[in-house]
């Protein structure tokens, strides 16, 4: 079984959104186009469209994340769906109740969609494979595997500022090894035809087979961001310090932290992105984070439009309507 073919139905429409891997350029572009249509909704006096009225979207978060959950909730509500938030800390799960038990219970409440975050790679696939056929699953981050809506909002941001991907050089800086965001970004950038994708970091934080992902690997920040159009900084998890991955935050910042000075190596109009939350003084200087090249806050607001697009498309595919219509 391929991981990707459960994502689309026979007509090639999006049924689940689990990973960027295996999705076509056309489909990714469609997501961005539909999101562009939704971007205006936030500016309206009534910030709602009735596309998903009567649908129940369940945020099923096995890992806590206020920000991602909130943007999904907001996106679903703007589509007029009802939202159920469930934070299931795995440690407090009553022993004996399996993930499948949890799913069956929720299915009995006639929900239409699971938005899933889980600490295990492959968890969203697992849920999509086992959920009742009428339920759509959106992956809101599974282990180190994928975070496709984050990647698509990043693509949206890049397209908004830079247009055509075919002429762009993009650098992703930091802990690629443990990053689901980076994996999805790399897949999306390559699918959209980006001229060059680079990853930059110490060898301890770059997968040994990174080249297989379709990237150029750099271990020097200045060299890696030379003449790039887009710099994506990854969040550094503090626990990496304990696993002998890095000696200290200070040394990391010295080598891979983005400063105004280092930014000079990139193209003059290069944009700086970060999936948040930022560790100021570890991944980047405050000067850069709050500076004119930073599009970090835009990423957050574009995130709602992109998630609206993905929710509408997957729910639309379920009821037989292509997701594109905004006339509902």
């Amino acid at each position, binding site marked *: *079984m*391929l*991981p990707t073919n459960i994502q689309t139905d026979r007509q090639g429409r999006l049924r689940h959104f689990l990973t960027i*891997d295996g999705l076509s350029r056309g489909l990714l572009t469609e997501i961005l186009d539909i999101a562009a249509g939704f971007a205006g909704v936030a500016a309206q006096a009534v910030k709602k469209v009735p596309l998903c009225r009567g649908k129940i979207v369940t945020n099923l978060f096995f890992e806590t994340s206020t920000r991602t959950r909130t943007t999904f909730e907001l996106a679903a509500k703007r589509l007029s769906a009802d939202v159920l938030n469930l934070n299931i800390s795995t440690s407090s799960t009553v022993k004996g109740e*399996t*993930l*499948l038990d949890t799913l069956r219970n929720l299915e009995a409440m006639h929900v239409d969609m699971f938005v899933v975050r*889980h600490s*295990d*790679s*492959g*968890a969203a*696939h*697992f849920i999509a494979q*086992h959920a009742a056929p009428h339920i759509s699953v959106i992956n809101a981050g*599974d*282990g*180190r*595997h*994928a975070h496709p809506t984050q990647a698509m909002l990043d693509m949206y941001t890049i397209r908004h500022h830079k247009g055509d991907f075919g002429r762009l050089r993009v650098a992703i800086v930091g802990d690629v090894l443990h990053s*689901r965001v980076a*994996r999805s970004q790399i897949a999306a950038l390559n699918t959209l035809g980006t001229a060059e994708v680079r990853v930059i970091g110490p060898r301890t934080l770059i*997968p*040994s*087979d*990174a080249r*297989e*992902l379709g990237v150029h690997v750099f271990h020097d920040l200045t060299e890696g961001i030379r003449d790039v159009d887009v710099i994506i900084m990854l969040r550094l998890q503090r626990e990496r310090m304990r696993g002998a991955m890095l000696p200290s935050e200070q040394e990391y910042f010295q080598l891979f932290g983005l400063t105004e000075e280092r930014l000079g190596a990139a193209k003059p109009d290069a944009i700086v992105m970060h999936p948040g939350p930022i560790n100021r003084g570890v991944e980047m200087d405050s000067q850069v984070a709050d500076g004119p090249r930073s599009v970090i806050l835009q990423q957050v607001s574009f995130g709602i439009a992109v998630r609206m697009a993905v929710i509408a498309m997957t729910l639309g595919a379920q009821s037989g309507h292509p997701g594109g219509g905004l006339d509902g």
Partner: protein
Amino acid sequence: MDRSTRISIRGGRLIDPANGVDGELDLHIEAGQVVGVGSAPVGFQADRILDARRLVVCPGLIDLCARLREPGAEHKATIRSETAAAAAAGITTLCCPPDTQPIIDTAAVAQLIQQTAQHWGKARVLPTGALTRGLMGEEISEMAALKRAGCVAMSNADHYIRNTLVQRRALEYAATFDLTTFLRPEDSYLRDQGCVHEGRVAARLGLPAIPVAAETVALARDLALAEQTGARLHFRGLSAARSCRMLAQAQQERLAVSADVSAHQLHLTEMDVEGFDSNCHLSPPLRTPTDRAALREAVAGGQIIAICSDHQPHEPDAKERPFPATESGISALETLLPLTLRLVQEGTLDLATALARLTVGPAAVLGLPFGRLDVGRVADVCVFDPLITWELSPETLVSHGRNSPFLGWEFQGRAAYTLLGGQLVYARPDLAP
């Protein structure tokens, strides 16, 4: 049918690799032993004749690593259920690792397992004793007592002994009693939380990965200890091309080391993990096509002397979780012979060599007189149909474990009759008795 029953297996192609036999020869059995190969002894009158025309007759298969889950995990499987599965797969002798619950670090547990197996009478179960107490890798176990209680080898199962001095002492102590030590070479620090091969698939799926070095670092250490101590070591379940080269070199240098491979490693690769198929969650992990090719070559060349099932039956819940949270292992007894025959069909091995890796090869590792069919031997016999094609499905599995990545595969070749000590313990239902 009592032990004194006289059986003739007629008209089959007898392949007994240990004795260089391959030809149309009848086999005559009395009182649990082979009494005639080809012609029957004077005055022999068979009580029962098994028609083996168009079938292959070979020594009962010997599996160096099969977990039967009893005692301790009877919700997964039992000695009764799994020895029945073994019989249905042509396997007559099974070695079980010591990681039962309680652990096989006392004579009582070793005896209990053998008695239970004898009670059900479907396969010979030989326990391997724990190399260290509680498999903790700190204190060596009472190996002399374990040997007296029937343990045929010592092993620390999949638990790596981190303290190299303890490892050295354990190997020396086992060698004192002429016990072979089974080792699964895997450095637990390098393994860490890994669940798949560190390679292209892990990079893309973001699954915690196990580098080849986890195996080769441990193998290098243990080869050095084999040289230092002169102890006889058997490496279980090699997975990497480099391990094969290290093994071959050690064997050229006349170290007393042998090795086996799990049958699935000769067919699957990391690519089979695609789609997060939890039935491909294995330890050691599935590696690359290059590794698979090297393992096949080592099996053909005899550096790897045995093919094992590495049978690990699970209840459905153990596999119905996100990939990293699932338990590793395959329910594999019933694919051991079919997967090995597939190597013959693919031209990797000739039939006699393939059967040697399932009979005389593992018998040599154990230093036991099984796995051959000359006159006077115990009549453990596997009779299989080399041409029949069939599909593996949950319904065809006798094992309680239905966890197999080979479900839906079409195989050619399947056990027809199995005899354990001269007793018919399995006849394929569609074959008239």
